[in-house]
């Protein structure tokens, strides 16, 4: 025999006596049940498998106040319904082996979660003791549990303990021993418990009863059960009501500062009206901040870095073939270089999105938007992928995987590119100050609000076509508001910026070189190029939108490669000899105010980019659906652009 870790308890190394008292340790996963077991049994453990199972069985011996006990560490389970092998093992052991006492370990810091199992154990009517573990964690979280009140409410002894610090284990075993020495009063299967399990639809108990009952009684029982098919929810509801009463009686939890602050802020942020106003104000603020900080930075980069690069390239390539200096200056510096100048705009977008996400606001945004969409009869399952894909259309398409119905999923995917992505917003943010001057923030805000309305209208169409008005519920756990973590936001900005630079160095570069080549060949100047011929052929399509200039049409088409290519192409086609800094102003001169708005509307609603189209093909497995998405967005964007231009022209005379 070796001495134990405390004065009362002594671990044994010898073979266990035959009249061992058996104590079963039950509890949910991660409540510290195994810690209790290890603390008590130390080295005296036997680890094997439960008979016929792959689940580990741990037993150990322990000597307490001169009495030897066998401790059985039951698998961690949430309930005693035979949902998993662990639950079946724990339940079979309690019913068939009938331990002398059961010690239920519960987490004092999450009593609501732990008491469900206790409710089930109580209906089995064993000699039960509750070990209130992690009392220290509960106290740290301002959760004060009164063990004697809980004991009175439950009708069984409750012992507070901190298993990890070996505190309270002796008292726990005192109670366990006392409970174990009481005469057993229960039958193997408590009638109430069997009745509850039958109502819950427990397969094992149902089979057992079918076997045990005479046929006539079984048929009558079966008929009764069929009338109460959904009894599980009522039983669970009853148990949770009971848990709620227990917790109300025994737990006091003064509201922590963060919680009350979150509640206070959510009164506005999740309010059906004020929440929406706040969301729209946030969008406005993002644009205002972008124009106040990022646009001057983008202009500085354009003036100083690109201007200088242009100068250096011209000098260095003075003796080089004309096509080479044109490629470097017009294709690369004006094309890719201009796209790179709106890096400050993207950084601001990424930073604001990162901060809003980290603060905990973006989830509220989705919540408030859903409320709004729901009022308009929109199906949440079609809206969610659309909204959660904000920032990039690819996850919007992937998000449609939550929709089981194939037709509804394909229709949602079809409209996913309507989500405003950061690339489109960056293009708008780049052009808007030159297009609208001091009204740029208001104009951009209106464009995004209009885009969201189109998205809502599209969602309603999906709802009517695919979901036939049926509704689905979602439950989300809104996080507590907290001060944003600089590292988290920084990493978010960094990863996204690196991805953008990679895209600029690959896809945008290739597209820019292609546009440059087509605008240069056959070598008689831009106005006589293949691209100009192609663009002029499309000019009749652009005229009803006020976009009669072939360069604008070609720029829109090039956005199929990547949305940022709109700017690269405009820069290549307009920038020759004009310098890159004045590009937005140059485009503005070519378009009347109504046409400027129409141009930005078309940019926001235009066909999906190559990556999104590829994802649509991958997710639908169909070229026809991919083509349908492109054609639908093409029609929608041109239609919306035309309405904006025609109405705008009438309004401005």
């Amino acid at each position, binding site marked *: 025999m070796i001495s134990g870790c405390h004065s009362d308890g002594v671990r044994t190394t010898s073979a266990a006596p035959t009249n061992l008292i058996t104590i079963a340790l039950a509890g949910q996963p991660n409540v510290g049940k195994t810690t209790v077991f290890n603390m008590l049994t130390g080295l005296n453990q036997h680890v094997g498998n439960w008979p016929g199972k792959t689940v580990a069985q741990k037993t150990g011996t322990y000597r307490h106040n001169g009495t030897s006990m066998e401790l059985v560490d039951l698998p961690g389970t949430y309930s005693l319904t035979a949902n998993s092998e662990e639950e079946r093992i724990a339940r079979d052991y309690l019913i068939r082996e009938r331990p002398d006492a059961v010690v239920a370990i519960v987490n004092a810091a999450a009593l609501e979660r732990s008491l469900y199992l206790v409710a089930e154990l109580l209906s089995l009517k064993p000699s039960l003791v509750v070990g209130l573990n992690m009392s220290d964690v509960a106290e740290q979280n301002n959760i004060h549990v009164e063990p004697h009140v809980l004991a009175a409410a439950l009708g069984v002894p409750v012992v507070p303990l901190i298993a990890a610090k070996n505190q309270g284990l002796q008292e726990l075993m005192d109670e366990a021993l006392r409970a174990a020495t009481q005469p057993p009063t229960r039958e193997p299967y408590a009638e109430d418990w069997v009745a509850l399990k039958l109502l819950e639809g427990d397969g094992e108990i149902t089979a057992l009863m079918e076997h045990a009952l005479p046929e006539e009684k079984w048929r009558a029982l079966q008929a009764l059960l069929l009338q109460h098919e959904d009894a599980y929810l009522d039983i669970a509801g009853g148990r949770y009501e009971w848990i709620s009463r227990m917790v109300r009686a025994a737990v006091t939890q003064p509201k922590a500062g963060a919680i009350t602050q979150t509640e206070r802020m959510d009164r506005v942020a999740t309010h059906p009206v004020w929440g929406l106003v706040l969301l729209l104000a946030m969008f406005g603020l993002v644009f205002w901040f972008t124009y106040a900080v990022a646009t001057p930075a983008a202009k500085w980069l354009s003036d100083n870095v690109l201007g200088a690069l242009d100068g250096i390239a011209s000098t260095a390539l003075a003796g080089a073939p004309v096509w080479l200096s044109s490629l470097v200056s017009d294709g690369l510096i004006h094309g890719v270089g201009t796209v790179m100048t709106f890096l400050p705009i993207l950084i601001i977008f990424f930073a604001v999105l990162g901060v809003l996400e980290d603060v905990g606001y973006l989830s509220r945004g989705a919540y408030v938007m859903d409320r709004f969409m729901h009022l308009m009869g929109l199906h949440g399952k079609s809206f969610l992928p659309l909204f959660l894909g904000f920032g990039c259309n690819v996850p919007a398409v992937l998000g449609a995987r939550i929709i089981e119905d194939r037709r509804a999923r394909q229709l949602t995917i079809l409209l996913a590119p309507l989500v405003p992505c950061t690339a489109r917003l960056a293009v708008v943010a780049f052009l808007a100050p030159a297009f609208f001057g001091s009204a740029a923030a208001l104009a951009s805000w209106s464009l995004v609000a209009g885009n969201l309305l189109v998205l809502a209208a599209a969602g309603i169409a999906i709802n009517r076509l695919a979901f036939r008005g049926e509704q689905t519920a979602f439950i*989300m*756990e809104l996080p507590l508001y907290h001060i944003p973590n600089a590292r988290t936001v920084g990493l978010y900005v960094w990863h996204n910026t690196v991805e953008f630079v990679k895209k600029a160095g690959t896809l945008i570069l290739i597209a820019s070189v292609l546009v440059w080549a087509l605008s240069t060949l056959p070598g008689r100047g831009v106005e006589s190029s293949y691209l100009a011929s192609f663009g002029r052929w499309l000019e009749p399509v652009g005229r009803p939108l006020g976009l009669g200039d072939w360069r604008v049409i070609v720029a829109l088409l090039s956005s199929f490669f990547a949305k940022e290519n709109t700017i690269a192409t405009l820069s290549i086609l307009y920038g020759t000899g004009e310098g890159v800094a004045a590009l937005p102003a140059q485009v503005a001169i070519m378009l009347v105010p109504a046409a400027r708005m129409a141009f930005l509307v078309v940019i926001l609603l235009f066909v999906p980019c190559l990556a999104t189209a590829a994802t649509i093909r991958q997710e639908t497995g169909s070229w026809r659906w991919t083509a349908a998405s492109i054609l639908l967005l093409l029609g929608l964007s041109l239609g919306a652009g035309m309405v904006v231009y025609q109405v705008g022209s009438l309004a401005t005379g």
Partner: protein
Amino acid sequence: MLADGGIHATAEVARRIGVSERLVAAMVEDLSRHGFLTPLESRCDQRSCSGCWAAGNCNRSEPTPMLALTPKGCQAVHRPR
């Protein structure tokens, strides 16, 4: 409440039925284990976005836990009680 559809925050559910948010969280976990609710992958992750070159543009922070009613859950909430 759930029969009407839409997104419901656990805090809102707790307020409506007069229990603590922690109890609602426990109930949600339980309903999820019993197949009435299913967790949603709300945004790009390594598994769903494998092979997508744009995956780096997705938010890398922890997504907000969100669950949807399963067909079994829908059946239960629409069943007359």
